């Protein structure tokens, strides 16, 4: 294989090109000032994965604190006091939401894959793309800088008046840098969204109509629209919060003439759509993974595509379901509840379509597929438990208990499964190397077991009335907490194994062919890793989910198009 002339091999067959985007130029500035979407994607991925480990560390710490109930209840808290615990859960939430999950799939993997899927050379605005990455870096640095001022203890939701008046003692307090950091991260998100919208509109190749786009692009597009429309509201809200905290201007504080519930409306107007910023790209990846690893055309393409759009639109109109007990008017609550139920339908439609895609397929249990099938299970539970919370009468009981904690982890942290699946799926394309399949599958199974151990039992705590964000708790819940914490240790082991798999692949992985999985979308038609400018000539637009013309070629260790065998690449 290596004896092939790279130039003659062309983009169609999996001979690693000598000149690819990784080797195209060298040195620090060739990365730091790069405009190549692929390098920006890789830098994002490295940064986001590192921050995932930071957020995960806080999670393991806070779970460890919860192993014992409380000194007052007869147990002993050995690790930290309540103030430190409150900082752990705040930073866990803030890091995971704003720094990891929101940019996770779109900014890291979307950046790498989106132009390739369109057969384009780059995104529409490469400089804006780099700017977006640096804003992410600055925002992250600001959020972490809060540790210097004693950390933040407001919870990731920054509810007023706690965040403006009390939280994190000290004149400056950790609240200011974290909130300012979230503001900057918001701009990073807006720029990415803007870039993707324009790229999808303007850089689609001739022949790729909207309904011939891979579904990942539909997911990313719907996400980008939310990012551009909703994130500015978060920016404004956070500025108002800072103005109240630093300048004493009353927006939310009733003593200054503000309204205490207003902040929640503003905050959730962004932060509920933000849940869909997290899940829509994950659903997009799911449609790719399920179809590719079943080797079967995706079922109900248009319904999946439209359900993404429906979720994006309806997602703007349900924020009040976070506030059924906040004192908002009863009428508002009823309207929000009704719209909340309507959003369950497009989510269910996607599940059924993925399921039908599996039917009579040829299901290959590679690591990405294991993560995808895990997500079916996890999102199934996450979605169905959302029904309980959408019912106003039940929410009066379940709101702000561990039931909610378990529910949103099954949804939001569930997207981490897809993120990991996507990393494995596009890893050969990004690095030009395959990974150890057996170890990767084992990591995904450990992850699945650990996740369910950690979070399923939290539903049972919640229905029994265990409130969230509690440092001390009644001893009757200790058993639940111990199981949950043990689950988090299993997940920790899974993540360590995953890191081992990826590092081993970088060091000694077998070279990847252009198309190791037999996928039909365009990114698999260029070499692994792709050359600097992706495609010399735009590849022909084909049905991304047509696997009939793909077949395994032993010589390249990957899949090739049947019609293209015997071309120049196949010469010996």
């Amino acid at each position, binding site marked *: 294989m290596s004896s092939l002339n790279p130039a003659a091999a062309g983009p169609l067959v999996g001979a690693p090109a000598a000149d690819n985007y990784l080797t195209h130029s060298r040195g620090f500035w060739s990365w730091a000032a790069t405009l190549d979407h692929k390098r920006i994607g890789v830098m994002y991925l490295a940064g986001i994965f590192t921050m995932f480990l930071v957020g995960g560390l806080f999670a393991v710490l806070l779970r460890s604190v919860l192993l014992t109930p409380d000194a007052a209840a007869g147990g002993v808290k050995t690790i930290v006091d309540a103030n430190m615990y409150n900082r752990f859960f705040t930073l866990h939430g803030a890091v995971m939401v704003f720094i990891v999950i929101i940019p996770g799939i779109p900014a890291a993997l979307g950046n790498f894959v989106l132009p390739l899927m369109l057969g384009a050379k780059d995104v529409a605005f490469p400089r804006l793309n780099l700017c977006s990455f640096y804003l992410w870096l600055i925002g992250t640095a600001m959020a972490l800088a809060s540790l210097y001022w004693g950390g933040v203890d407001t919870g990731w939701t920054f*509810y007023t008046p706690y965040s403006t008046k009390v939280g994190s003692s000290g004149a400056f307090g950790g609240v200011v840098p974290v909130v300012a950091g979230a503001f900057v991260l918001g701009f990073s998100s807006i720029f990415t969204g803007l870039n993707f919208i324009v790229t999808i509109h303007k850089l689609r190749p001739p022949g790729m109509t909207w309904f011939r786009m891979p579904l990942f692009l539909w997911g990313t597009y719907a996400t980008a629209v939310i990012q551009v429309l909703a994130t500015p509201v978060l920016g404004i809200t956070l500025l108002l919060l800072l103005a109240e905290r630093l300048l004493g201007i009353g927006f939310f504080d009733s003593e200054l003439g503000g309204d205490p519930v207003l902040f929640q409306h503003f905050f959730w107007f962004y932060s509920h759509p933000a849940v869909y910023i997290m899940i829509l790209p994950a659903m997009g990846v799911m449609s790719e993974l399920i179809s590719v690893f079943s080797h079967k055309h995706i079922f109900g393409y248009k319904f999946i595509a439209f359900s993404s759009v429906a979720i994006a639109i309806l997602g703007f109109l349900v924020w009040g379901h976070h506030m059924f007990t906040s*004192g908002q008017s009863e009428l508002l609550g009823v309207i929000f509840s009704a719209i909340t139920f309507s959003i369950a339908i497009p989510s269910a439609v996607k599940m059924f379509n993925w399921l039908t895609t599996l039917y009579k397929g040829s299901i290959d249990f590679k690591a990405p597929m294991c993560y995808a099938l895990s997500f079916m299970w996890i999102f199934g539970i996450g979605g169905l438990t959302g*029904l309980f919370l959408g019912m106003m009468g039940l929410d009066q009981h379940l709101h*702000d208990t561990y039931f909610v904690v378990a529910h949103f982890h099954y949804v939001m942290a569930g997207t981490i499964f897809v993120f990991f699946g996507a990393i494995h799926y596009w890893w050969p394309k990004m690095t030009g190397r395959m990974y150890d399949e057996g170890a990767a599958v084992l990591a995904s199974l450990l992850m699945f077991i650990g996740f369910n151990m950690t979070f399923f039992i939290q539903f049972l705590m919640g229905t029994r009335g265990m409130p969230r964000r509690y440092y001390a708790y009644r001893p009757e819940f200790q058993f639940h907490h111990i199981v949950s914490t043990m689950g988090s240790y299993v997940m920790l082991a899974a993540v360590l194994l995953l890191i081992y798999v990826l590092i081993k692949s970088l060091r000694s992985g077998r070279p990847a062919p252009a198309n190791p999985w037999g996928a039909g979308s365009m990114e698999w038609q260029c070499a692994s890793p792709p050359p600097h400018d992706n495609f010399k000539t735009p590849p022909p637009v084909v049905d991304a989910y047509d696997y009939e013309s793909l077949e395994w070629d032993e010589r390249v260790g990957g899949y090739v198009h049947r019609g293209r065998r015997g071309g120049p690449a196949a010469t010996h």
Partner: protein
Amino acid sequence: MTGILADSLGLMPPKASTFAPAVDFWFDFTLWVSIFFFVLIIGLMMIFMVMYRRRPGVRAIVTPTHSTVLELSWTIIPTILVVLMFWGGFKTYMDQRVMPSGAYEIGVNAKQWAWEFTYPNGIRHPELHVPKDVPVVLTMFSDDVLHSFFIPAFRVKMDVMRGRYTKLWFQATLASPPGGYYPVLCTEYCGTSHSTMVTKCVVHETRAEFDQWLRDADPLKKLTPEQYDEYVRDPAAFIAAHPDIQGLQSPADMGRKLWDTKGCKQCHSIDGKVGTGPSWLGIWGAQHEFSNAPPAVVEENYVRESIENPRAKALKGYAANAMPTYQGRITDREIDSIIAFIKTLKSGSETK
């Protein structure tokens, strides 16, 4: 109405209010629907995983990529089910949110980190006591940040905030066992000691029993001015002479009880441990330095001022605005008791 699955699996707390059966019924309904769909989807997925696993040389079978009948059926059937759920949630919610007329009214005050209940006769008490089978309306207000009032056994919850009253009602149907109670929890994160902002809700079997409790709830308040003078002069003799006054103890013991129940202990330890505020151990007679006032010695007037107007003197080394004012929520007699209690907390005399 009840929840068969929730009950047999013990998923819910005791059913102690009129709302509990309806909430549990709809919980159960949604649980059955969820189990059905989960088993359907994941069951089929697992069957497909086994039946259609990749085998060498066997390609996927090409099946139709679209079916309007299928798409419509898995759109319409869930829609009907969620309309039902919405209806159930809506109906229960409206019952919870429409306040009954002629209910027994109790005021609730929340502050970092204590609950206080004001009864119609003016008694302020850290525990919620209610009679069984009587509708009770709570009118709630916060002194500082957001809190949320939650009694799992009643299936009720409502945020409590500054600048706006919020209301909540319930009708207890199950008396708490003798000596037992239903936990009252704060479910909106409110700072350091959020998780200990819990108190007791006691449901009395009869109205007479409740009224009796209410009469005895504040023994200090029951005393006439003459009786109070007599009590302060010689507490032990007065208590011995008046066995009918339930719960009356020496001023220092009364002060300790107030420390325990009025929220003082969340920030002020009595064993020397530094908390959000200074420990009371050995504080009496000590010299205090302030960031905004000349130094002062801890004596009666300073303690009174710190309770009623805590921001007048900001003790160095502690947050200036951490303590809420107790003006209007604490009687002169109660302040006397707290002073008496602090006086007993001398360094070296460990009081646990």
